[in-house]
């Protein structure tokens, strides 16, 4: 990337450069930058139950952090991430390594099928997994028997981290498997051949040669998944609609923000909490950009 040369340095082309990016920059500012600034500003205006709105640097943040629902939601999301992220990594790496160890027809089929659930996303996915965890209609009904609560329902506040984790693996693993498989096939065959001649069996090749070479993907998959999972909203919202009354409407932190904004019309608190969430997610994003090599621009990473 260091070899990329810029065509023009003459001043008259500066304006031309801007004319190309103008429409995009308008969108970037209007829908990427302004909402963030607007949220930050709104976070400083407090709407009390009685009396006029007033300005305060800390009141909204203090109120949000003192809200008893926030630690509950934070623990829910943390539990979900703690189950989901390790499970995702293990499934993705094990399947990719097994697929690469020996190319068979069954392997090719698995690779393709693992990708299909990724097409069923959003509310359709939540609906599908609502069915999968409904004992009456689920294809794995008997397996679910030990999980069914006294009311005959599995989905609840406390079972949701596990359910979301399984769902997340089913939907997201396929894409990563195909990506890692691609990275594995790019390893020079001479390298594996040399290891084989030195007496390394298939397991040792996978563990000592291939795994270290694709290790850089661990951080990438982890941070991307963390940033997405941290903001979870759609799945608990839709599962909650299906399993009526079983899931708190403020189960995840983002749902709590939504509840401030739409249920309580308290935009100041909604902004304060979404700004706090944004700080964490943007930090994760900047780490990906700066510390991993996955997105590089002009040779600097």
């Amino acid at each position, binding site marked *: 990337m260091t070899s*990329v040369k810029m065509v023009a340095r003459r001043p008259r082309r500066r304006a031309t*450069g801007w004319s190309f990016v103008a429409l995009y920059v308008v969108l970037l500012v209007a829908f990427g930058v302004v909402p963030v600034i*607007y949220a930050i500003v709104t976070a400083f205006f407090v709407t009390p139950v009685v009396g006029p709105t007033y300005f305060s640097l800390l009141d909204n943040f203090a109120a949000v952090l003192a809200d008893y629902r926030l630690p509950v939601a934070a623990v829910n999301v943390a539990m979900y991430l703690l189950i989901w992220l390790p499970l995702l990594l293990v499934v993705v790496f094990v399947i990719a390594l097994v697929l690469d160890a020996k190319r068979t027809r069954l392997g090719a089929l698995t690779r393709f099928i693992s990708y299909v659930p990724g097409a069923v996303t959003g509310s359709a996915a939540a609906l599908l997994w609502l*069915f999968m965890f409904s004992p009456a209609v689920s294809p794995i009904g008997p397996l679910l028997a030990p999980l069914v609560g006294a009311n005959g329902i599995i989905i609840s506040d406390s079972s949701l981290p596990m359910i979301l984790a399984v769902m997340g693996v089913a939907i997201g693993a396929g894409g990563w498997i195909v990506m890692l498989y691609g990275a594995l096939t790019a390893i020079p065959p001479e390298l594996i051949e040399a290891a084989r001649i030195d007496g390394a069996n*298939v397991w040792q090749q996978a563990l000592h040669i291939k795994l270290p070479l694709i290790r850089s993907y661990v951080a990438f998959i982890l941070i991307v998944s963390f940033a997405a999972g941290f903001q979870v909203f759609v799945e608990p919202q839709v599962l909650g*609609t299906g399993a009526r009354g079983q899931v708190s409407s403020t189960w995840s932190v983002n749902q709590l923000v939504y509840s401030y904004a739409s249920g309580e019309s308290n935009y100041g608190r909604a902004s304060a909490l979404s700004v706090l969430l944004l700080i964490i997610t943007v930090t994760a994003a900047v780490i990906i950009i700066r510390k991993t090599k996955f997105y590089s621009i002009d040779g600097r990473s």
Partner: protein
Amino acid sequence: MIARLSGRLGRNILLLSALLFFGVPVLWLFLATTKTSDQLRNDAPMSFGSFEQIGIAWSHLIGYNDGIIATWTLNSILYTLGSMVIALLACVPAGYGLAKFRFRGRGVVLFLTLVTMVVPSAALILPLYLQMSAVGLTNTPWSVILPLAFYPFGVYLVYLFAATTIPDSVIEAARLDGLSEWGIMMRIFLPLAVPVIVMVAFFAFVNAWNAFFLPYIMLTDSDLANLQTGLQLLMRNTNALGGANFTGIPIREPEIALAAIVSVSPILLIFLFAQRHLVAGQTAGAEKG
């Protein structure tokens, strides 16, 4: 010999369980549309009902609320195509401009593009909602189309393509021939960039079609819902998911499953036919690591 056999057995068991884990839920969704609600509960889970039942479920779905599902489908198409077209008009020149010109502010634009690309869209949706309600655009199609048209990933893909595969000498030659800068983009760059433009169009399409959180929060009018949010309305306003059917509306599990399949069908088709390109896009950037 035994070790090798057991190794192969272990491998096949692992692959088969993966196959079941990933395959069964989606297959079940299709089979569910062939059965009645009672059959779903009492028959073997992965059994096939009948093709007639799909037709019955379909007519129930079409009949719901004077065929509102058709409105939702049209809305989905409008939001998706509208945002895709604007995204392309913005992304293609921007990616090219960022790759081939050096101007003040370029670094900032690039950095913000990367950050907004990596930050999950859910993080920005509530701030966007506050902004849209401040300017009175909520509950209009624009509140969904415009934010979806901001598609930094598309800019990144075009930028990578222009920076790495279009030699500056080609542009310089066209310049000497007297073409204007926009002329060079239209007549030299565009024809070469067709593959990457198709890829951006395709990702923007998938992204917009799958949007749930944004329309869910921006649009309160059920006539404005897209298929993704419509599906949720369908669940909420009927007794589709278990329990007695107090509403008397013939929307039950099979109809809901059918609605789910309708809502993801374009994406499912794209997945089946363009798997390779989707992966190529997912790993764009990653391969340079």
